[in-house]
């Protein structure tokens, strides 16, 4: 029906009254979490599930590549994913064998996988490390311990969300020039819950606004500065 066709994957916070479940074939984002620590895997899995994501958690970069169909043995990476499409990869930096940085590089070098946003987590907030990861194409860098507010921010990067590309650009820009104002978010319109269901004016940008990009308080660099001053 037209109503659901327009609003399928817009941010739910705006559309609390609408039932989006008929679209749930592609409704929930699928996140691949990579961390060698079982404690951290358990926590990140819960954080993601409670934020309405499907989660696959693996304990190494090798297993992540296996899951993504990019084995060492199988060079033909056209095989595709193990069942579900992956909308985001979140990986720890410090892992034995393959580090999160090495995993990031392999993903960005792959023609089939490079579009998947990758987020790095680390308990060490070393600016050189962060810079290196962002330069290699990571969408964001989260300093552990990971909190619910971090995961909520991640939802902006998921490929399901068309606003995602803009948002990641904003965060990267914030890294380089903290004083610069982020551009206003794209004005893609969801239906107003109260309006009539017949032909919404998709071109007008009037009353409805997409929730703004993360405030400067939530940006990784500001958070780092706050923790550095402890």
């Amino acid at each position, binding site marked *: 029906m037209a109503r659901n066709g327009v609003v399928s994957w817009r941010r739910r916070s705006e559309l609390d009254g609408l039932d989006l479940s008929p679209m749930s074939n592609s409704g929930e984002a699928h996140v691949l979490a990579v961390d060698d*620590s*079982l*404690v951290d895997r358990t*926590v990140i899995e819960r*954080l993601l599930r409670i934020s309405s994501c499907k989660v696959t958690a693996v304990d190494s970069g090798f297993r992540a590549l296996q899951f993504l169909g990019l084995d060492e043995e199988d060079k033909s990476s056209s095989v595709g994913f193990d069942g579900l499409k992956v909308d985001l990869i979140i990986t720890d930096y410090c892992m034995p064998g393959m580090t999160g940085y090495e995993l990031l590089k392999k993903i960005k070098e792959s023609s089939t996988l490079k579009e998947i946003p990758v987020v790095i987590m680390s*308990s060490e907030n070393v600016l050189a490390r962060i810079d290196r990861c962002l330069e290699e194409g990571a969408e964001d860098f989260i300093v*552990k*311990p*990971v909190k*619910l507010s971090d995961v909520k921010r991640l939802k902006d990067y998921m490929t399901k969300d068309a606003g995602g590309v803009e948002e990641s650009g904003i965060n990267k820009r914030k890294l380089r020039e903290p004083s610069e104002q982020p551009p206003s978010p794209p004005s893609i319109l969801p239906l107003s819950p109260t309006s009539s269901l017949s032909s919404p004016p998709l071109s007008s940008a009037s009353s409805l606004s997409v929730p703004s990009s993360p405030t400067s308080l939530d940006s990784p660099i500001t958070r780092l500065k706050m923790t550095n001053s402890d």
Partner: protein
Amino acid sequence: MLGLGVDRLRADMNRLLAMLFHQGVLDEQFLQLQQLQDESSPNFVSEVVNIYFQESEKLLRNLRELLMDKEFSDYKKMGIHLNQFIGSSSSIGAKRLRNVCVAFRAASEQHNRTGCLRALELLEHDYCYLKNKLHELFQIEQQRILAAGVRYPIQQIN
């Protein structure tokens, strides 16, 4: 009477948590874990904490084995264990243990064996304290669940 029991138990839990916060044993990440517990995952905190305990005890054993070896020189390996311990401690909000591990790691980087031994003893002692207190916390919580009957969810500590 049941109501009174539940309230008193909740007060006991709050008091214990406040004390652990005040002592610097726990930090707000522990509260974050509690926020992740609900009807769909009613034992989340104790599950994670028990995984943490299992991993920690393994790490502590490894660290002690390394240091007890008279020929010990593999500070790099010790550093790896400590990084793991630091990471998992911070993930559950075990602030005191994390800080002791950081000091331990500094001693290890300086190849200071005596300093490492001292740090390990402190770590073992503080770990025992944390484990006892968290077990106490979970016990009070279990009693409160029983006293509350079918009342749910577990009240969040503010």
